[in-house]
């Protein structure tokens, strides 16, 4: 912004918000619910060819011979591309060997089935759960950190030492819309790419270099995406191959991954296992020392869970000694998975701390309240712990560990806490006000289902005094001004800042045009419910339509950017969250049911509580999924993934998630602590902060803690399947 402003971009205060902070239906809800929203998978182009991959069935192998001649001979098969041919070493089940492009999906499958490959099968490692059993050449150091003196702390007579092992296995994203692409060349050097991506503005450049055309000649379109969760930032092999082969065949090419291929190849969340030793003061209940050995895998490259998240949140523990190892395993390679590293950090830390609380014989809630000063945001966590405790009726339902009754159904409560950044990403927005009064907002952003379109419409409507449905939000196309990729909860801060500034800029120009006709200075005008009004004499006003008629031939265009060094910040980062689970465990069958799950979350100024709450519910349900059901299962003998499908890669249904309560911390909140202190936090003050990641972090730990509270023994590894629950009970000596 070079010219001086007479309007402030500052978010309106609570009493002057028309849309922000109010519940607004998502603007694209009807399109999605009626099946009219077009996803990449739904794009059908005239004369389109289909691509299907042949994938490697072995965890580790070398391609000895590959014969594609029979595939090439099938009428309707147009292209067989060998991706990894003779001599190539394949490092995981599901990696691509060849691609067949044919006139129909069925013919492409016929082609894939006709390819003959001879493999030399090599040694594999797919089970990384036991650190001592992993060959040394498969381990890579993941760092060491020391602070204070753990040995001295552990040896002090007042210290209670608690040891345990915890684990959280590899899972996948399982986006319901598989990864995929439709590529079509308009001319020799102009490509249109429909691609299921979280990164509309960043895609064209990645593809352009591979097909040797200028980035500006590649148009990326993704109006709707059927899930990404961190796995859809790049063009991937299929994106590049579709573009290349579409040019060669001079016809559009569509490649969507089959479900098995999707689950094997298109991203995993690294596993994390840890041996943990915690020292707590018997008198005060304060955590004094933490020692951990962490290991895990993110696929053939290693890259397991980061050492930075053990211990999680309680980073102020005065004495720490920790080490980490990355395991190079023959399993699907990692990709960012919603809140990278944090769910593992919570599952390995909050469990160990809850075990310490149980060993001390004190209430888990009391224990975490005592230790919040070891975190970065003690006031926020104290408030959230107390609010969550009320919602789950902690004082009514809590009992010491294992004292959950004598019958076959044992109930228990558990807690976990989490944090996330959620800083705003870079974003540019253009707001066009047309002479007919219509408003277009353009950003090269994307709506992952988080409600991005709706948030943008609300911000612009708030700024211009209109209704959200009067604002036409255009995203999902690289022809619009660039916005960052949607990852790490960075979108809402980025796009709300840029669209607020762009709308303010456009409004200033409009007010300058119409001020003379009202006979006032532009700065004396404001917008209100479809009118432009004289602040000093509200009877002097003109309607939005009348005002826009004075624009002239060309629309007004307002430009807004994030960041904007000339303007105040409108978004920031850093949130907390507390979750509590109330479970019922059948100690005869080992089945865990969620009775009630409470999520208390802050995320700065909330634009749309309706979609924000949905993000929290969604994160919690995804968390319940990996706490109780989800897991990539590998056959140790053959190294194959056993469940690359949706029958045995278990996700919960509507009846599996219990009663859910999402509570958003909004505005100024005052909470009185049990010891009579009053704590006040203004949650709106930091501006807008992203929310996608945080609510998915805690469910694993909260549910594991609740199960331990119910049955009196820790089930060390997630997911808490019946066999694991029964095994833990057996280890303890049978039924509790």
């Amino acid at each position, binding site marked *: 912004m070079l010219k001086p402003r007479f309007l402030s971009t500052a978010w309106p205060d609570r009493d002057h918000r028309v849309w922000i902070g109010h519940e607004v239906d998502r603007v694209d*809800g009807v399109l999605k*619910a*009626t099946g009219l929203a077009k996803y990449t998978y739904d794009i059908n182009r005239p004369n389109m060819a289909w691509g299907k991959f042949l994938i490697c069935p072995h965890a580790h192998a070398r391609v000895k011979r590959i014969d594609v001649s029979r595939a090439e001979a099938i009428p309707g098969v147009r292209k067989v591309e060998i991706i990894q041919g003779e001599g190539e070493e394949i490092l995981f089940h599901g990696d691509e060997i060849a691609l067949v492009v044919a006139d129909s999906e069925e013919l492409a499958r016929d082609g894939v089935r006709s390819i003959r490959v001879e493999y030399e099968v090599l040694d594999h490692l797919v089970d990384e759960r036991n650190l001592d059993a992993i060959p040394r050449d498969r381990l890579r150091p993941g760092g060491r950190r020391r602070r204070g003196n753990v040995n001295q702390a552990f040896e002090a007579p007042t210290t209670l030492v608690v040891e345990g092992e915890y684990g959280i296995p590899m899972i996948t994203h399982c986006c319901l819309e598989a990864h995929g692409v439709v590529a079509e060349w308009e001319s020799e050097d102009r490509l249109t790419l429909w691609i299921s991506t979280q990164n509309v503005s960043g895609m064209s450049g990645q593809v352009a270099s591979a097909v040797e055309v200028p980035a500006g000649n590649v148009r990326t379109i993704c109006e709707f995406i059927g899930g990404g969760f961190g796995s859809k930032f790049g063009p991937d092999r299929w994106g590049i191959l579709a573009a290349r082969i579409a040019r060669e065949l001079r016809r559009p090419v569509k490649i969507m991954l089959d479900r098995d291929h999707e689950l094997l190849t298109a991203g995993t969340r690294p596993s994390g296992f840890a041996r943990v030793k915690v020292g707590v003061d018997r008198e005060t209940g304060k955590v004094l020392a933490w020692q951990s050995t962490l290991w895990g895998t993110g696929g053939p490259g290693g890259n397991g869970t980061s050492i930075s998240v053990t211990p999680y949140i309680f980073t102020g523990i005065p004495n720490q000694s920790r080490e980490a190892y990355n395991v190079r395993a023959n399993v699907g390679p990692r990709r960012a998975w919603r809140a990278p590293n944090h769910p593992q950090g919570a599952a390995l830390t909050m469990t160990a701390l809850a075990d310490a609380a149980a060993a001390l014989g004190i209430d888990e809630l009391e224990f975490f309240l005592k230790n919040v000063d070891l975190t970065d945001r003690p006031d926020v966590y104290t408030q959230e712990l107390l609010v969550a405790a009320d919602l789950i009726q902690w004082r009514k339902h809590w009992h010491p560990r294992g004292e959950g009754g004598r019958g076959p159904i044992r109930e228990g409560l558990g807690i976990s806490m989490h944090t996330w950044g959620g800083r705003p990403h870079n974003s540019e927005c253009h707001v066009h006000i047309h002479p007919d009064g219509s408003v277009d907002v353009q950003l090269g952003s994307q709506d992952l289902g988080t409600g991005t379109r709706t948030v943008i419409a609300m911000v612009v409507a708030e700024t211009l005094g209109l209704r959200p449905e009067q604002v036409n939000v255009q995203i999902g196309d690289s022809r619009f001004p660039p916005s960052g990729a949607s990852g790490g909860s960075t979108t809402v801060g980025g796009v709300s800042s840029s669209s607020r500034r762009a709308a303010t800029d456009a409004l200033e120009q409009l007010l300058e045009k119409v001020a003379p006709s009202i006979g006032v200075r532009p700065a004396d005008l404001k917008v209100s419910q479809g009118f432009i009004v004289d602040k000093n004499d509200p009877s002097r006003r003109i309607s939005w339509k009348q005002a826009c008629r004075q624009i002239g031939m060309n629309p007004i265009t307002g430009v807004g950017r994030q960041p904007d060094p000339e303007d105040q910040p409108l978004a920031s980062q850093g949130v907390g969250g507390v979750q509590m689970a109330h479970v019922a465990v059948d100690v005869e069958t080992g089945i865990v049911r969620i009775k009630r799950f409470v999520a208390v979350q802050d995320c700065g100024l909330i634009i749309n509580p309706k979609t924000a709450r949905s993000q929290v519910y969604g994160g919690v349900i995804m968390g319940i999924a990996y706490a109780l059901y989800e897991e990539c299962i590998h056959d140790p003998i053959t190294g194959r993934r056993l469940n690359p499908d949706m029958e045995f890669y278990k996700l919960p249904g509507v009846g599996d998630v219990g009663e859910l309560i999402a509570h958003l911390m909004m505005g100024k909140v005052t909470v009185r602590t049990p010891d009579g202190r009053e704590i006040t936090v203004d949650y709106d003050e930091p501006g807008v902060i992203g929310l996608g990641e945080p609510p998915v972090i805690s469910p694993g730990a909260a549910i594991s803690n609740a199960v331990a509270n119910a049955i009196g023994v820790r089930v060390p590894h997630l997911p808490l399947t019946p066999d694991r629950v029964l095994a833990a009970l057996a280890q303890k000596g049978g039924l509790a």
Partner: protein
Amino acid sequence: MDGQKHDRRAGPPRRGFTRRAFLKGSGAVAAATALVPGSRAEAQETGPKIYGPGPVPIRLRVNGEDREVKVEPRVTLLDALRNHLNLTGAKKVCDRGTCGACTVLVDGAPTYACSMLAIDAQGREIETVEALGPDHPMVQAFVEHDALQCGFCTPGFVVACTAFALRNPNCTVEDVNRALGGNICRCGTYAGIREAVVEAARKLKGGANA
């Protein structure tokens, strides 16, 4: 769960996701099939019919219209709808009858379109999510209760939920929890779905669509 009241009063035959058409269809599949010439029932009387190999012309009745397509006999109803009729509301996700994203009504019964061959759907009444339209109470309830995020499972859910709600006008959240496990959502929209179905069921019962 099985609280439907069969409405057998005479009336003009109705298409679409109406309570009457739905109950009629689901209650009397055989009768409905017999009404349609060239139906599967008729084919069975004259012995098994051989289709293919290679694309064969078939006629599908979709959303009240007869549509001619040429598909290989191995093509599923889902692929015929999506790839040949450009009705892409039903989604392909698991492609083996687990997730429910491809749910359509076949003779009024919610059916995984990925698990039925297009040739077997001849002579049957197929209704897809596209038949509902923006004003349908279930669509409205999904939006109002924010029962959708990325939206990829949503069309399948909307169809399955509509079929369920028509049968169970007085359903509770508990009923929804028990009955609608055949559809999977990855974004985690179940809280909104529960509320949406219970509310829409009441509106469908009393509303103009009944």
